[in-house]
């Protein structure tokens, strides 16, 4: 059981060696992909939600099935597919686009639910006040719908963040992959992967807490 001991021992020199690499990978890839994909997903999701509401029926239902298809199939397979199908794009770019599109299908549902959550009475009040449909959307519906959606959008961003390790199937060296590569080179896995876990917790747990608080505050003020 000698192997056991060496493999599980904590080596501080390995720790200090790998930490900068991990932080760089976290900032340059994990965070970059999460932030840009969240932006794409948030915007595209709104377009999908609006299209499903306003487009003619056949168009709307086509969009809906495409969205369902994307939502219900593994992002890993989507990444592989896109990576090999679009060889002219770099892995990180593919990652950003695939994550953005995949999560836009979730976010569109959030928007839809947000719009649906605006009480019927609010719509009726706008009719009773003869408000235009444009004004109804911009002054009443969207401001109220967004309140309900922001926390859910935040939760999806966190969930996307936790999915970024899937990028390793297309060779993108994000946080986890950077840890594994270090492990593969030095044959030491305990330090990099523990650090990876800690960085994940440090990044995602406070964000979740923040979103939870936001959720409570928004709910209280409505």
């Amino acid at each position, binding site marked *: *059981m000698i192997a056991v001991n060496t*493999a599980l021992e904590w080596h501080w020199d390995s720790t200090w060696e790998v930490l900068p690499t991990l932080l760089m990978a976290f900032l340059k890839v994990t965070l970059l992909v999460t932030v840009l994909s969240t932006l794409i997903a948030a915007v595209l999701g709104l377009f999908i939600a609006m299209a499903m509401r306003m487009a003619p029926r056949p168009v709307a239902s086509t969009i809906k099935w495409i969205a369902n298809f994307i939502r219900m199939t593994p992002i890993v397979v989507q990444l592989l597919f896109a990576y090999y199908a679009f060889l002219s794009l770099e*892995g990180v770019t593919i990652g950003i686009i695939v994550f953005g599109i995949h999560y836009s299908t979730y976010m569109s549902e959030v928007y839809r639910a947000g719009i649906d959550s605006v009480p019927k009475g609010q719509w009726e009040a706008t009719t009773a006040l003869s408000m235009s449909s444009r004004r109804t959307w911009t002054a009443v519906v969207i401001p109220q719908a967004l309140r309900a959606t922001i926390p859910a959008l935040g939760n999806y961003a966190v969930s996307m963040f936790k999915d970024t390790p899937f990028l390793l199937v297309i060779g993108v060296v994000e946080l986890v992959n950077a840890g594994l590569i270090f492990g*593969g*080179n030095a*044959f030491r896995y305990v330090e990099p992967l523990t650090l990876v876990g800690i960085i994940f917790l440090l990044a995602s747990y406070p964000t979740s807490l923040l979103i939870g608080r936001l959720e409570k505050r928004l709910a209280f003020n409505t």
Partner: protein
Amino acid sequence: GSTTTEQPGGSAAAPAGEGKLQALKDKGSITVAIAGEAPYSYEENGEPTGATIALAKKIFGDMGIKEVNTVLVDWNGLIPGLTANRSDAVSAGMSILPERCANADFSDPEIMYTTALMTQKGNPKGLSDLDSVKEKMDAGEDIKLAVLAGGIEAGYADSLGLEVQSVPDAQTGMDTVDNGRADAFAMTAISLNFMADENPDANVEVTEAFVQEIDGVPQIGAGATVFAQGDDELREAYNEGLAKITESEETYLAVVGEYGFTAENLPPKDLTTEELCEGTPAP
């Protein structure tokens, strides 16, 4: 059989340490981990094959361990799998590197590595080695270099300060060059030549092999089979068998020649694992 799903359950490996060699002999089989890289160790039509597999079959077979089972894992799972006792040895031509020696035990050198570049046919950018890539990049030329994510060449490129694209596997590396997404793909000469031969239709060629120098130090690479720490008896028995093969060019090529290996890959007699582990390889 080789795929994991056919395993009966738990690990197929024998318990580590003293008596392991005997246990394997009694069982008549050994499980080696592979990463699926041609031409070292990979699966073809569901059967394990490749140069290091051929070595393993010969050496273990001579010891009386007739059956060599393989378990195909991700490159990054090879060593953890070994320490976790999910395999008895790693047969993937892993390079002997000082930092690795502290955490696992290598056999004597089996393969000498040199590096090469894969380019499109006709080598349109006129690249010969990583130094030439660096020169042209520094001169402002638009050169895209692909390396295997986590591969040793990625380390070279990093030391030289080169911008790279990572690819998840060798096949993808070739595709990127073939499709023009990258101008060159740096990898071991053996792998590149093997792939180029296997895919005559691909619009790729491989440069002359070279030994990369980093800060004036030539990066001589040698690959070996890896054993868990403590399995000294097993490793020494393996080394004995290996010595008989690396004895002469003839015996060496008889085993690995069919996988595209040449005399160049035969480790010199005076090169030892200890030296490589200390980071002072003979020039």
